[in-house]
């Protein structure tokens, strides 16, 4: 049985249909990356999976006893809330010092235990979030734009870490990212999302799929390609999809 299976999921937020009839499954040990333009419903899909959003239609089914480790897009800690790294790892379940140290080492964030969360650098912060997510021995690790604010070597190292963690713990990984080229190399499966699933499969397959190229362009460097949409992309659906992308206006002009 799949860890998570989704059938016919639709989500409306504030009057807009963000997700439309999504079918999706993820199995043990897989690394799956969701790519898609801004507003394509990537985070919404993740939030529906963790149960933070109620589907308008369709079902999200977890394997019984599924343990999820979640690394949010960003975590704002109010400055009035004192929080050491060690204390943070105790949320929501207290763990032993040995477990805490092991998780920090696994995430590449050793030696930070006594530091205040508010005083960490972006990369350290994300690693601590990862360590916390690993503590529950998750079957499924979910990362929402986990490398936002990291420089390129930083995020490459972070994804390297994720692959190591998967190999070590055997958990499945589901992540959302903008950094197509980095992420696609590290994934077993790529899902291209734009309100619905446009295409999915192995990274090489998706990268050459017409739907993917329509969204991200034909260039090889995915990140650059984001700025060069082709607008001729059409779907054989009856309903009207908002595929008009905003003009990104190339900054380098």
């Amino acid at each position, binding site marked *: 049985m799949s860890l998570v299976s989704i059938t016919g999921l639709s989500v409306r937020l504030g009057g807009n249909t963000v997700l439309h009839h999504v079918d999706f499954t993820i199995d043990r040990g897989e690394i799956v990356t969701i790519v898609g333009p801004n507003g394509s419903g990537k985070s919404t899909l993740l*939030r529906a999976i*963790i*149960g*933070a959003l109620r589907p308008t239609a369709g079902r999200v089914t977890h394997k019984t006893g599924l343990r*999820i*480790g*979640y690394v*949010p897009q960003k*975590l*704002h*800690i*109010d400055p*009035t*809330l*004192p*929080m*050491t790294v060690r*204390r943070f790892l*105790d*949320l*929501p*379940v*207290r763990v032993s010092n040995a477990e805490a140290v092991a998780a920090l080492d696994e995430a590449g964030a050793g030696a930070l235990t006594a530091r*205040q969360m508010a005083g960490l650098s972006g990369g350290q912060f994300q690693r601590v979030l990862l360590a916390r997510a690993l503590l*529950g021995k998750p079957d499924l690790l*979910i990362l929402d734009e986990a490398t936002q604010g990291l420089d390129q070597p930083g995020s490459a190292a972070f994804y390297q870490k994720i692959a190591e963690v998967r190999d070590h713990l055997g958990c499945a990984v589901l992540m959302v990212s903008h950094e197509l080229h980095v992420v696609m190399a590290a994934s077993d499966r790529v899902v291209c999302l734009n309100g619905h699933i446009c295409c999915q499969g192995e990274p090489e397959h998706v990268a050459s799929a017409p739907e993917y190229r329509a969204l991200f362009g034909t260039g090889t460097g995915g990140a650059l390609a984001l700025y060069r949409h082709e607008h001729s992309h059409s779907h054989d659906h009856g309903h009207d999809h908002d595929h008009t992308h905003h003009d990104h206006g190339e900054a380098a002009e």
Partner: protein
Amino acid sequence: MTLLDDFLIRAALAGIGLVLAAAPLGCFVVWRRMAYFGDATAHAAILGVALALAFQTSVFGGVLVVSLVMALTVSTLSNRGFAMDTLLGVLAHSALAFGLVAVSFLHGVRVDLMAYLFGDILAVTRADLAVVWGGAALVLVLLWWRWSALLTATLNPDLAHAAGIDPRREQLVLTLALALVVAVAIKVVGALLIAALLIVPAATARAFANTPERMALAAALIGALSVIGGLQASLHYDTPTGPSIVCVAALLFLASSTAQLLLHRRRG
């Protein structure tokens, strides 16, 4: 003659009981930026007093019910994305105004309004003391039981969801605890000053704490100091007791903020 025969001892015990519950709850109020929320709930308490007197039921019960309704209303509306400050301005002050008007309709009963607005800690009876400590114990048990889930939900609602915690349920726990503290506090410091006892000790404690638990403990300690200091000051200078307690708390906040600022400057 026992210890509790002394009205000063009773006053001190009532105040300390209240701050023990208000301190950890106040920390959550500060962390979640719900200061307004305490205000609205407390202002609604006056309406509760009026209704309780009109229906000749216990003031504690009336305040508890009305505070709870107010807290639930605010909490529901805030989840629906209303402009919070405006909404609270409307709700809090209307509740206070309707409460004051309602009190004026009560013929036959002479209501000492000042006692409900600012409390009358020196008139605390043994029965009041039992209510204060009972309510405080209930709040502490509630917070103790939900502590970890509450903290997780406070940090980030999605983080809570992923761990199988429903943040709305935790919000409800806080709402309930808040209504209880307001109901307990109305006799001690009154409707207008309870919000101060929630927030000021917690804000003062921030400077001395590196974990949430230490901040809650420090807040309780600072609250207790304020109660004892305020009682002494009010005896010595013949000032109203409830406001004196809040004044001492405010002075402690000033001292801790200044100390922190100076320390920071020396380091930096």
